[in-house]
């Protein structure tokens, strides 16, 4: 429900919001998130707390807005951002530089931990200008993969000065986003509607597979992989369309779903309940796609005494061998779609979901936290 949403105007346009990952056995909901800004003379990486549990009322309702814990200057627009682990955040810059920031939790400060200057560049890396925007970053500790407007793919390893692998001119178009398919394989999407698989075990600088939207070459802006069924991939396009791909078969998407009226900037499967998917767009909307087949089978999401919360049970995932996402016509009877922002006007640039919590940031310079997504 909308009344569970806490907003805060932060005087900077937010390009990225990311929850800090939880330790493996954590039962608590996430409490910290990071944001990055863009288009400012002085862009910043900020760490926010959603408020301590003391702020939660008797009935589990949450009061108060996110509190700033610390922030640090960032050179250039923040184009993408991923937590490497509990303490380190990898940030992609419009200057082409990739920086690892460390969040020191004892004294609540941020510092630049490691930096790859102009990891993405045009023509010549050494000239004074010539940096190309790094558009996407994905981490699988200790590995970091970045893509950029220069069509380049970099594989870095944290604490290692030079790139482990660089594929120059991997794509003749702009690479917009990247995600891991398996430990040695990545997925990229580009500005001519292609989804490509790259295998780092192969020495060839060619993609191992290319998928593409037919016809209009609509640029793809985001990509996410189903957390349990790795062959299911979701992408979002310039026309706001959500595409679902089965990378085991064919070269075209399994389903094209009409959603937003403008660029879809991010798509995320819920990490522990992938029947739910979230997308946000330039048109100022944020959609919740729910394919959980039957209301009675909906995974339990119980509040126990208002304080601790159990996460989705995993049994539903193992049950469904054929995912709801791959059914012939997902729109027909199985999908429930809700816009979570009724009166928004400016772009929702980023969202992140973890457990029952959603965080998103907008060009209207506000961040929003919903801690009871499924209530």
């Amino acid at each position, binding site marked *: 429900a909308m009344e569970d949403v806490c907003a805060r*105007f932060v*005087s*900077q*346009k937010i390009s990225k919001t990311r929850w800090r990952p939880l330790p493996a056995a954590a039962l608590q909901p996430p409490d910290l998130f990071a944001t990055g800004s*863009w*288009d*400012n*003379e002085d862009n910043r990486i900020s760490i926010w707390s959603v408020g301590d549990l003391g702020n939660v009322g008797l009935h589990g309702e949450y009061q108060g807005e996110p509190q700033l814990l610390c922030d640090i200057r960032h050179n250039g*627009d923040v*184009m993408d951002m991923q937590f490497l682990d509990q303490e380190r955040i990898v940030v992609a810059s*419009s200057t082409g530089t990739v920086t690892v920031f460390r969040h020191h939790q004892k004294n609540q400060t941020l510092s630049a931990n490691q930096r790859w200057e102009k990891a993405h560049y*045009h*023509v010549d890396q050494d000239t004074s200008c*010539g940096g*190309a*925007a790094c*558009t996407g970053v994905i981490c699988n500790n200790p590995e970091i993969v970045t893509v950029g*407007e*220069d*069509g380049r793919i970099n594989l870095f390893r944290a604490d290692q000065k030079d790139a482990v692998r660089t594929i120059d*001119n991997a*794509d*003749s*178009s*702009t690479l917009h986003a990247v995600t891991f398919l398996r430990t040695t394989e990545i997925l990229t999407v580009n*500005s*001519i*509607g*292609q989804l490509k698989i790259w295998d780092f075990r192969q020495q060839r600088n060619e993609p191992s597979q*290319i998928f*593409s939207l*037919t*016809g*209009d*070459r609509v*640029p793809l802006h985001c990509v996410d992989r189903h957390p349990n069924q790795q062959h299911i991939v979701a992408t979002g396009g*310039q026309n706001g369309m959500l595409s679902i791909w089965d990378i085991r078969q064919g070269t075209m998407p399994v389903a094209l779903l009409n959603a937003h009226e*403008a*660029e879809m900037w991010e798509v995320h499967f819920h990490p522990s309940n992938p029947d739910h998917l979230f997308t946000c767009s*330039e048109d100022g909307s944020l959609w919740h796609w729910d394919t959980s087949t039957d209301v009675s089978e909906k995974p339990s999401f119980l509040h126990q005494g208002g304080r601790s919360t159990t996460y989705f049970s995993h049994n539903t995932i193992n049950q469904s061998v054929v995912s709801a996402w791959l059914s012939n016509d997902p729109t027909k009877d199985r999908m429930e779609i809700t816009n979570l922002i009724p*009166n928004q*006007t*400016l*772009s929702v640039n980023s969202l992140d979901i973890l457990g029952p919590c959603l965080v998103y940031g907008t*060009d*209207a*310079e*506000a961040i929003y936290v919903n801690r009871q997504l499924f209530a």
Partner: protein
Amino acid sequence: AAVPSQVVPGADPSARQLCFAWGPAEVLVCETLFGRRSESPSRGEGGPGRALLPGTLIAYVAGTGEGGPSSSRLFVVRKDQDIYIQTLRKLFNESHGIFIGLQRSEEELAGKSRKAQLVQVSKNYRSVIRACMEDMHQAAILTRDPALHSQYSTQVSILSAMELIWNLCEILFVEAAAAGPLLLRLLDWVRLHVCDVDNIVHEVLSSENPSKHELFWNVVDVFVLQGRMDEARHLLSKEASANPTSVNMYKILDDLMKKMPVPSLGNTQTLTEMELKWQHWHEECQRYLQDGTFASNSHMESICKILLGDEDAILEKKDLMTTWYHFLVTRLLYSHPTVKPMELRMDLFLGGESSPEPLDTILMAAFEFEMHQVIKECSIALSNWWFVAHLTDLLDHCKLLQSHNLYFGSNMREFLLLEYASGLFSHHSLWQLGVDYFDHCPEYGRVYLELHIERIPLNTEQKALKVLRICEQRQMHEQVRSICKIMAMKALRNNRLGSALSWSIRAKDAAFATLISDRFLKDYCESGCFSDLDLIDNLGPSMLLSDRLTFLGKYREFHRLYGEKRFSEAAKLLLMLMTAHIAPCSFWMTLLTDALPLLEQKEVIFSAEQTYELMRCLEDLTAGKSDKQKFQDDDVEIMKVEMLRLALARNLARVIVKEGTLEGS
């Protein structure tokens, strides 16, 4: 016109000739060498004749550094200084949402519910101002920098004045409260904004024994002056219990205060009823005053006089009211409680004895129902366009400004919105908000948007996409073309042919697509292989954008067919590229050379007819050249032609044999 006179600090036209360049939201003022006197004695103008209005303008001296007396300076003058204040960004963003909501709101809603809706919008705007004020106040407390502190404090007082004015306008214009409720609203307004006495009240009320406090009667007076009867009576009851001898006197005063008729918010009583009750109560107070009931206690006597609306008695408490508008409202309360909005002006000047500050002038204009005067004075006094733009828009939605047209085209609402939005567009980040404001300016909004949007720096593709989306949604084809072209040029400069082609395809820019296709073909001719195959193989229908692009796509298809050893299909396509004139003439030689390996295949590929056509192509190509050109052709070229002729002849021979054999069998 509502144009404030502005002084650019440091620019002195008496010492230097100045020149100006006008931008959409900024003005460049430049010192020139023109007409300089060798000596420029100061003419002693007695300092700036007019003080710079607080923050109306901000001027930056750019470029020259320390310079010397001889170096020229350049000033960048911004129209809207407040746009650059970090803490106000919250105000701009949050009010943007309210503004959009108001534009989308249902005009059809009938009388009362529409008014309730508009009042709610007005309150939302005010709560944003207050929230911002709170933030600014916190910032002022937290900062250790004295300069920052004073800057924040100034902003707090400006925001507070803005809220005060807005609130009054809300009562008088938006809500347009009827007689009776109007007074209650004005009392609320006074209570909310005259905070100077709150400290005394707090001090007395929190003291151990309030009735013994030296400021006790001041607090009672404050309550009475603000019409807070219950609180006044509560305090008095404490004093009464401490003075058993005069308990009767307290009781009478308490009774009078209790019985004071209050205008009701609902429609439960008519104005006449209220006036009758008032008359009755007034006479009762008069009686007690005349028979000397309160003679022994000057405090109570003066309260009784206040209840009777005695002007001198009220004026005596001037220090407790601090402002003339408090005095005005108090006087209305006790002498004229059923005042109708239009009658307010009669009582106005009685309180206006202090020299009018801008704020006073604005509030007076509001009390006089001079809406346009309010807007004009605010435009002059405030350092931002935010306030007047949003207030005027709200009043316009209340249908209060319709008759007023400016002599230069658009109406006042639009004029102010355009100014405000232009200010937003001069900001590196807030420009996105400006778009929606321009959208709601029917006359000039579109032109302004077109002019401003082209000036947004495009440092990343993502930002370009956002700007492009704005233009595409509004069918601004010219701007779409220009943005795509800029991006395509950038990509081309960075040697990113694929990206460049994508941008020109998006802009449907055939000429540029041709240019890029030529680059691809040139690269191919030089290196012998195609770059960016992933793109060229994927052109799809966009291939038809330009002839050259079509050729590029088809030519690449030929190479693919050849690579896949689908020779006859490849041969057919190759020939078609020339005979259908898809290939540019300059490329025919390359195509014919590409035919060579096909002609040399063991198996015959070109039919007799096809071979004749190839020959004609070759002859057309060589015949088309002048003798001079032929002379310039190098040996390689001549040899190529000879080889081709030979290969074609051989192929013809083979094919005649083959086809003859086929026919014969």
